[in-house]
């Protein structure tokens, strides 16, 4: 998994919790990488799951909620780091539609070994869209958080109906039915 997920996660822990909490979960996780993350590297997604679990234990918050919150946070960060992705994009649905065929391709330009999730969008109406998420990693919650972050970015009131699908394990496949309320 791309290093940016790890650096942003640690960033969020430092911001939302504290530097100390961040140090604690890294020490406790006993990571192969020792938590020496850079956005350029690639690390096992087990490590981030491990860290989320430890944070959940530490904070008493649900791991799923944490993942969702991280997704939301991550989208905000992307909007900051990669402002160029947002040029000429006026709605959340437009942006989500661009992820598979534009952003993931841009990612692969930089990191040919990256293995992003497979996203399929179906626009059912102007204000309705279905997004099918499938990955070998159990990050459906992060995805949901990202969708929320996206709606927030575009200042949209979006209802998200998440249907979990079996995939290769819990959280690896889901269908999101989204409806934009005016």
């Amino acid at each position, binding site marked *: 998994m791309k290093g940016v997920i790890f*650096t942003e996660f640690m960033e969020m822990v430092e911001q939302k919790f504290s*530097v100390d909490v961040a140090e604690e979960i890294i020490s406790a996780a006993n990571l192969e990488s020792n938590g020496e993350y*850079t*956005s*350029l590297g690639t690390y096992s997604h087990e490590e981030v799951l491990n860290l989320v679990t430890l944070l959940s234990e530490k904070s008493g918050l649900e791991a799923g909620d944490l993942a969702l919150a991280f997704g939301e946070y991550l989208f905000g960060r992307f909007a900051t780091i990669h402002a160029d992705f947002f040029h000429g994009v006026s709605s959340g649905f437009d942006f989500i539609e661009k992820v598979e065929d534009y952003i993931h391709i841009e990612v692969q*330009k*930089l*990191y040919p070994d990256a293995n992003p999730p497979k996203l399929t969008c179906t626009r059912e109406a102007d204000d309705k869209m279905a997004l099918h998420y499938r990955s070998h990693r159990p990050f459906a919650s992060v995805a949901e958080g990202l969708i929320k972050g996206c709606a927030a970015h575009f200042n949209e009131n979006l209802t998200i109906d998440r249907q979990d699908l079996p995939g290769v394990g819990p959280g690896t496949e889901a269908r999101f039915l989204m409806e934009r309320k005016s």
Partner: protein
Amino acid sequence: MDAEAWKKRYQREKSARKAAERIAEEKTREIFFRNQELTKLAASLEEAVKERTRELEKQNFSLEEHRDKLKNQQRMLQSTNQALEEKAIELEKISRYKSEFLANVSHELRTPLNSTIILAKLILDNSEGNLSADDLYSMSVIYNNSNELLEIIEDILDMSQVQAGELSIHMEDVSIHELCQGLEEQFRPLADEKSLAFTIDVDTDLGEWINTDRKRLKQILKNLLSNACKFTPEKGRVALRIFRDVWNPDTDYTSECLSFAVSDSGIGIPVDKQQTIFQMFKQVDGSTSRQYGGTGLGLAICRKLSDLMDARLTLVSEKDQGATFTLSLPPGSLLPDAADHNPSSMNNDFFLNTVEPDSDEVFEFNQQTVLVVDDDLRNSFALSQLLQKHGLKVLLSENGRQALELMETERHIDLVVLDLMMPTMDGFTMLEKLRSEVEYRMLPVVVVTASASAEDEKRCRLAGADDYLSKPVEAPELLSCLHRWL
């Protein structure tokens, strides 16, 4: 360092890391695009190479096609060339056959003509005075027609020799005076007959001698004069003028040459026919031949002979205004008039028969014995009649072998008149055998033959002939020749 300071330092390190990460990502992106460009470039290069290869293949193919086409053309050219060569060989063969045929025909025609002319002349002489005027007139017609026929045969033979490239030119010194005398003698009677004013003018600034082919020059002038007489109506005018002329008036370089202008006041030649009359078998039009006769060979031969002599034959004429044919001999023909010129030099070894016999001379012999060897009995008869009439004893043999046999018993032979083409033993063989015997080494032998080529004459002389006459022989010519050797 307190916690606050550590925190600041941590934030600084983190910012530095992020900056490094950003730079790295930018570089990576740049590398990606560079890479993409390179890939594109490689692909376009590859495509260009492929395109170039395709083009080269195409060019190669078209070159091969072109080469094949050229090869084909070359093959075709080769076969055409071969066909042409074969055709040329065939044509050469045909041409040779034609020449041989004409030479043979000419020989076959001359032989009977020879006896006809001699006998006609003998009868015309009317030595016994018992012939009527009608008989004599008939005989003169036979005599004249035979001579005319002979001229036609000679024209045809000349033409075939010219065409076969067998005719050569023999340059010698010729006396203008003698030339004019010969022409005067020949054409004066003809002119008188038609009441033509006939003149021969030689410009006074000319020397006596010129260098040219005597026989051919005479042949051309005779032809031109004979035409002039033929095509000029009675009481007209025919003139031959010999004068210094300008050789090549069309160029800057000029020199003097010798011109013979034959002019007449005859029917003339229309301008549009002036080139065609120099072609073989061409006359002014079909009616010319009907009205005036002739084969249409004369002028063609004149032109060919003139070319062979490097001379120039030109014509100025208008219809009904007469014509002037001018033969210009090249500058080399004019000789400085040298006093030490030896007239006998004209009696060239090979061309004794060109000497004009003095027709006025009367040849009387003293009962010397002449052996006539000829397979043609008409000829033998004619010859023996002529010779006996002039006081010679005549013995006859039909071929070389018979003659040699006869000579074993008949020792008193003073001269041999020898034909060449005979069965059993021909004249050449007989000559060789004769000359191989001491007894006959000095015996005069005069060859009289219908084979008219210069080559034959040379062969005869090499085989040992003392003199050579070609048939038909004029009686005075033969008698003059025999007189020299007896």
